[in-house]
């Protein structure tokens, strides 16, 4: 899952650094992801995983790292399964 997330960020995050060099916990905003780029990342993640994040999850903290995005996706899948 984290590899696919990383790939989406590489394509849409417009980071000035190589995302493959960043750890799962690295702060993407500190790494240079703008709020505009983060919207594109959110859209692309929804598309890649075929999910729709509710607004409550579409906040800065849910998208601040690869690990955080993975947690949000897991929470969403659990909701679907329940």
């Amino acid at each position, binding site marked *: 899952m984290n590899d696919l997330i990383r790939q989406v960020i590489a394509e849409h995050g417009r980071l000035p650094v190589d995302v493959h060099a960043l750890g799962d916990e690295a702060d993407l*905003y*500190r790494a*240079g992801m*703008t709020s505009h780029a983060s*919207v594109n990342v959110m859209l692309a993640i929804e598309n890649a995983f075929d999910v729709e*994040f*509710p*607004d409550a999850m*579409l*906040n800065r903290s849910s998208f601040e790292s690869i690990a955080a995005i993975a947690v949000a996706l897991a929470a969403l899948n659990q909701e679907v399964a329940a």
Partner: protein
Amino acid sequence: MTTLTVIAGTRAERDQTFVDTVCRLADDVAATHADAVDREARFPIEAIDALRAHGALSAFVPCALGGGGVSFGALATACLELGRRCGTSAMVFAMHQIQVATMVRHLDDAPWFADYLRDVAAGQRLIASATSEVGTGGDMRRSVAAVTPADGGWLTFEKQAPTVSYGAYADDVFLTLRRAPEAEPGDQVIVLARAEQTTLEQMGSWDPLGMRGTCSPGYVVRARIAAEQMLPTPFARVCTESVVPISHILWSHLWLGIATDAFDRARAFVRASARRQPGTQPPSAQRLSHLMSELSLLRAETSSGLADFLAGSEEPGRERLSTMAAVLRFNNLKIAASEQAPRICQGALSVCGIVGYKNDTPYSVGRHLRDSLSACLMVANERIHQTNAGLLLIAKDV
């Protein structure tokens, strides 16, 4: 023995006293000098000094820090009332209060800022803002200039700011910078640089269409500061929870004030016409009625924006203010109010006709129209639409 700050009455009583005082100063001082301030493009020193003399510059600072301890709602009302008498005075007051309110709301683990707010209250210090920057295309969420370590543990910076509100008249400067030389453009902090630490080198002149007395040319801002003068909360959070909604609410209130006075002048004009011919309704009377509908819309949007902000601010963690719906909501307040205020001023002009167009009649609304036209440029509306358009691609509950 501990000396407690004398707190006069309840918050409601403090609010009432504060608003009454500002109304009186608006009538007695700001209104008297409004035309000269506009004509000469000079700083509204009389109004600001009068507000200082009554402690209004620290009205929103908590009582425990020596301030007036008034509510945010009272601050918004004060902007509206000043706006009815002098748009420039209202804008200077509002800009200063945006800085103060932001610091008050993010004091956690920031003892330097608590001490600084004590100084603001004791000395009635006026704070300028330098959040825009050459080379960012008007995007407040990116910075070029960076906080840079220097000898002796000091930090320095040099920022090219295309507009610094009343820079030459301010005591201190509130600005955004990159956290460190190696930080990304979006990794910003708020810095408060005190006058004695700062030099301002003016770039360009100041001869604008409206809001002429705000005296806000560009400056190169250079300062040497201590590390604790950076607000610990990252700017990204401060921006969403405080700077943006507070700016949009206080600006909207003062624009409503300007539009309200334009409407009042149009109403006075219609009444004067009606008095000359009792029994016949002057043709302008119906246009005034149309204008009142427009004013009602602006009033409703402004007050509901304030109510939503107060509700979101009361929640622990203020999480509601960080939602996309909230960002869109306060952006829309700014767009709507900045478009509606000049529309009302222009409507007032069409009611009054030539006596409204002339600058020296009791019905003149030229200054109102010119002042209100600045609204759509203070953070360009198209830039805000661009942000909103992005959010609308992803937000669901708006």
